[in-house]
């Protein structure tokens, strides 16, 4: 199925969970936040939250910054 991750289209297995997606992408899961279709998926729910075709996933983390970027 096709989803978008950080704005880019991606082909993934059907019913993939958020946790599995992070694992596939090789993202260290501790200090990232994940949003699916504008809703934050809490870390304790990542293993149960399954993705559906067309889902828009955002994965964010902290970067250096003060203001105005």
């Amino acid at each position: 199925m096709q989803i978008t991750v950080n704005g880019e289209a991606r082909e993934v297995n059907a019913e993939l969970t958020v946790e599995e997606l992070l694992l596939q992408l090789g993202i260290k899961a501790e200090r990232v936040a994940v949003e699916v279709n504008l809703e934050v998926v809490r870390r304790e729910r990542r293993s149960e939250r399954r993705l559906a075709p067309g889902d828009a996933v955002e994965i964010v983390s902290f970067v250096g910054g003060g203001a105005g970027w």
Partner: protein
Amino acid sequence: MVDPSVPDAFTIGQKTYRSRLIIGTGKYKDLAQTRAAIERSGAEIVTVALRRVSLSGEDSILQAIPAGVALLPNTAGCYTAEEAVRTARLAREAGLTEFVKLEVIGDQRTLFPDVEETLKATKILVAEGFTVLPYTTDDPIAARKLEDLGAAAVMPLAAPIGSGLGIRNPYNLRIILESAKVPVIVDAGVGTASDAAFAMELGCQAVLMNTGIAGARDPLMMAEAMRDGVRAGRLAFLAGRMPKRLYASASSPLEGMIASPGG
């Protein structure tokens, strides 16, 4: 890091700090310099921005933050309340902290706050349990409205972000300080240590800066200068300055001169 026996501790939300300098983590040469600047500034709170992860897996800013230093995620780069709220929710999930430096910008050229959107976002985030530290203009009415909505502090700008112009309107800051019951933190515009000292002398509870340190020729030395500037200004505020006089007033005794004046 928090020591309840410290005199004149700085309290924000439920937490207390010794340092009254909060610094941003952007614009440094690399993570090593970021870390060294934080250490040398003595800051116990640092602000960080939130961005999409790079799938190539670069080093995290969190590696540059010394243990015991608190994270203050910011919504830098947001132009609407909606974007800022969304960013704050993600920041809470990523950083496991309720603190947020709320920033809703109105215009790319000035980076001035959009007060209307900031008020909207403050209301929503306070209701969701965030400790909201909003970046705002030096408008006393805006500051009062933010406080009324439950902001944990108000953070008026001294001058535009990254401008280094210093405290452009100390009179407005004084008016804000007169009535604020939450900490007033000068956020943006501080260019050198005397600016930081001046903000603290006015009675601000803390100063937040990024470019003032990162943009110096020697950022690490400036980090130390800012640490001392904030501390000096705070002490001067607490000490209470002498009154200004038009004429001289001798500070040595007039008695016992070897020749009497005029004789």
